């Protein structure tokens, strides 16, 4: 009877360990960013691409409209793929696109904009990538939707596609 109880305890204990490890191994060990968490836009000061003037974030997001913050770089190939869609989005009057030029060379970035068009109402220079970190980004391209209350309501990691454009249009409606 005593031996059976011991065996029972051991089986329960092993089963418990098995469940813990099984669950642990099944959970992906990679970073999955939070896409829908509402966060305030960071407060920052950034250099503007064309004027070289420093702007405060409250000056950048001053209107009560939706903003799309797009992190891009001339060396980023997926940025070229999403660029026509950004051009399409820029025609929408109810949103403004803010470009964050990430760890780029000015000349190359200028050439990129001249070649493919400028969808942004403002481009900010993020020379050392710290501005992207303030937004919680981890690469390029990355796109954030900022609502009228200055909250980041959605983020898209990687190049945007037609589906995402439809989703953005639905959100800003």
């Amino acid at each position: 009877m005593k031996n059976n109880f011991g065996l029972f305890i051991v089986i329960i204990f092993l089963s418990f360990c098995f469940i813990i490890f099984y669950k642990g191994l099944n959970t992906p060990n990679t970073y999955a960013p939070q896409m829908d968490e509402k966060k305030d836009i960071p407060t920052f000061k950034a250099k503007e691409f064309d004027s070289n003037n420093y702007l405060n974030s409250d000056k950048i997001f001053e209107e009560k409209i939706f903003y799309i913050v797009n992190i891009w770089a001339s060396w980023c190939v997926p940025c070229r793929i999403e660029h026509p869609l950004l051009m399409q989005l820029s025609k929408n009057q109810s949103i403004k696109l803010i470009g964050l030029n990430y760890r780029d060379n000015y000349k190359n970035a200028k050439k990129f904009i001249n070649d493919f068009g400028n969808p942004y109402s403002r481009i900010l220079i993020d020379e050392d990538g710290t501005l992207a970190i303030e937004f919680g980004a981890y690469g390029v391209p990355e796109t954030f939707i900022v609502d009228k209350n200055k909250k980041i309501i959605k983020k898209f990691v990687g190049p945007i596609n037609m589906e995402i454009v439809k989703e953005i249009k639905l959100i800003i409606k």
Partner: protein
Amino acid sequence: MKFLKIFIIVFLSVGFSHLKSDEKNDEYKNKILKNIRCLICQGQSVYDSESEFASSIKSIVNKKIKEGLKEEQIYKFLREKYGDWVIYDPKLNKNTYVLWLLPLLLFLFGGAIIFKKLNNQK
């Protein structure tokens, strides 16, 4: 000649003390960077990685240290941006209870078995 000697001694001591403080700052910064996970790398810390993401994190940690933020404040800032996963040293919260308490439970369970066995032998 005496003046020159004094000058050399003062110059060297100031120079070396500056180097020493730089070294100390680097050590402090590296300690923080080693505890931050590179989110786009496979099992690498920000300190070990040369990726764009890691370089950006290195820059922001540098900036925050210069602004006077302490180690815990920098971790808090990064946790707010990327969640608990970005720091290697996990905090005790509802998601990490099992991680922190399981070893303790195992220790107590094993200890109880040994204690019981020893008692039985007596």
